[in-house]
């Protein structure tokens, strides 16, 4: 390939005597650079500013407002720990807290194992695995509100697919008001999240793909079954991905809002309410901004404790 030279424009300062691309024979001058500490500071400054403005300050405001009585207008009145005392004597809050922790448990002990199992199957690349993987991941790119609405109609008492199907196969006695029966409402709002395993599955598949094939070949020579290989090679080697998934699950469970909001509004009688929904109600219905902030602080503390717990378990597993 021939290299074309750019035309020389009058006025451009180009040495015509030397070759076009001849490197300078001058020794590189020693530039007086900024000290390393200042360099690091400058690199971190944008991120530090963003975190300060959009995370640290709002968190501090939430913590400050959690000790006030404020209706959203006027000057907040300082009530100290009063909001927290009220929170822990409010059955609706305790129910929401309990339900949120149940979301965490279901996420960790049902949703995550389901993701692992499907990832282990798909990693063996059975026939049609690519389609399977795509279909399972699809719900992750659809708005949760739309999906919640879809599931609302699946479980609806008179328009729902479940009751219609049960009636069709002669199991009419099993039909019920799934969304508003206190014994089923919470489970029903969790169902979509539990079964949408696409994200976790992809996370595990990515990690599984980094495991050297030799490990499996050696295990096969030793006569290890597929189950044994998964149990003794794959799962231990994806433990960091499992920890990451659990962190995601905890985060999502603490923020769980769309499914209970759209499907049951947290009812009946708060049986499917979550912390996020409780905070929403305190702010937008009761105009109790202080109480909402206090509930937010409790959510933050629960999140920190759970995250620390996950890291503690991970460190123990590493040893």
């Amino acid at each position, binding site marked *: 390939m021939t290299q074309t030279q750019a035309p020389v424009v009058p006025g451009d300062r180009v040495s015509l005597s030397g070759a076009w691309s001849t490197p300078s024979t001058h020794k590189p001058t020693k530039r007086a650079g900024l000290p390393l500490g200042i360099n690091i500071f400058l690199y971190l400054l944008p991120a530090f500013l963003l975190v300060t403005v959009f995370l640290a300050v709002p968190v501090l405001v939430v913590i400050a407002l959690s000790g006030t009585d404020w*209706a*959203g*207008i*006027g000057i907040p009145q300082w009530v100290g720990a009063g909001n927290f005392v*009220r929170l822990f004597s409010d059955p*609706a809050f305790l129910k929401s807290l309990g339900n949120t922790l149940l979301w965490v448990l279901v996420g960790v002990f049902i949703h995550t194992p389901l993701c692992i199992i499907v990832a282990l199957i798909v990693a063996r690349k059975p026939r049609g695995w690519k389609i399977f993987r795509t279909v399972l991941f699809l719900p992750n790119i659809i708005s949760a509100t739309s999906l919640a609405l879809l599931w609302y109609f699946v479980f*609806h*008492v*008179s328009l729902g697919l479940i009751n219609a199907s049960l009636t069709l196969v002669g199991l009419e006695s099993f039909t019920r*008001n799934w*969304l*508003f029966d*206190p014994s089923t409402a919470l489970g029903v709002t969790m169902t979509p999240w539990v079964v949408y395993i696409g994200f976790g599955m992809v996370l595990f598949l990515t990690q599984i793909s980094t495991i050297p094939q030799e490990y499996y070949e050696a295990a096969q020579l030793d006569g290890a079954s597929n189950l044994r290989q998964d149990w003794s090679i794959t799962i231990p080697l994806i433990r960091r991905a499992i920890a990451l998934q659990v962190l995601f699950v905890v985060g999502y469970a603490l923020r769980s809002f769309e499914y209970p909001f759209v499907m*049951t*509004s947290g*009812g*009946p*009688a*708060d049986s499917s309410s979550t912390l996020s929904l409780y905070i929403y*109600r*305190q702010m*937008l*219905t*009761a*105009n*109790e901004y202080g109480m909402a902030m206090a509930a937010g602080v409790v959510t933050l503390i629960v999140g920190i404790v759970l995250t620390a717990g996950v890291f503690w378990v991970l460190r123990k597993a590493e040893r």
Partner: protein
Amino acid sequence: MNRKATVALGATTALAIVLSGCSSAIPQGGGSGSATEIEILSNFTSDISRGKVLDELIEEFNDESDGKYKVVSKAQPDWPTLQQQIRSSISAGTTPDLFLYNYNPTDLSREESGELMDWSAYINEDPEWKARFKEDNLAALTTENQLAGIPGDQAPALFYYNKDLFAAAGVDQFPATWDEYLAAAEEIRKTGVAAISLMTADDSWHTMNALSYVATAKGGPDAYAPGADLDSAAIVAAADYTKQLLALSTPDAVGGNYSASTSNFLNGQSASIIDGPWLISSIQSTVPEPCSIGVAAAPGFNDGAIEPGYTVTDALNVWGAAKQSDPDKEKAVVAWMKFFTSNESASRMAVDGEYPMAVDTELSEADRGRASCQMAQVLDISNAAPTTIVQMGREITTGAQAKLPSLLESLALGQTSPADFASELQTANAE
């Protein structure tokens, strides 16, 4: 600067000037440059009848003011969002020029924010205008001789019932007492139709209408007035009747929202509903024989606690305005409100907008002829009502309001007895 750069700069400037002239979709009138502009924030979107009438009235007002004033409507269709938007704006010191908000005697944070305009001087200097409003409403909005707003609407919640479904169950006349209503409801249920549309989600509007009617029929107009003890015999009785009504409602009443409840009535899955006049436009557009839907005052009891024919209403919605530093803007706000609350505007809002306003409205014969079969009945019942009482959900504290869905659902599911319902409601209201 070289020639090319100068030409480029000139061309860009010229393009910017041309484009800025095209940027507004609203035609700029010759005299509008000096007009004092005010913005109205409400839920009157242009796709609903009251929004259409508002737009027409605004256009007429702007024309009549001959370039002096320009009113612009900014509508937010979702009522709770609108209320939060107003609250946030007041809090941020950017109160809208004129806005529609729901008055709640237990939450005067907006009225006492110091950000609202005082209407008292304007209404006191015009006795004719003042006489158009109910004294009670003006008194409620007055704090320390300052009038925080102009009464906007106070929609009566009345029984809308499907005459054909009642007749199919052998009920030819709308029941006069709640016990007769329950008996009729049982007959209606036997025909495979729910007797009444109720819902417990959000503000439990339809269910709270029923509860409010029974409570006031049992305990009189002050059964749940601000400061009243809700742990009372009237509220216990009301909870008991409401529980029975919920059992006679559609299967999705517990947990259902306004939309589901209304659809059930409009689709003929339930025979009655207690709702505001905004339902009329849906009846007119959805029900095949719109005039088969009758309107009735709620049943009562024969114990004389309250005079029959009274109405329970939605909260008083109020037109509040921002405290203005510009006197011209304040004059514009007052001029618009006088125009908007005139008998002619109110009649058009009632007949064409299906939105009866909280002002004295006398319909002409022509207007009466144009009114839908339901609106004419609504106006007759409202005019004949000896008393109006605001619905309970609008009178209790916001904290108690937030607990209503849960309390009603517990009541419907048998987790809470009517007595416990009253007691828990009182506790929530007293917090």
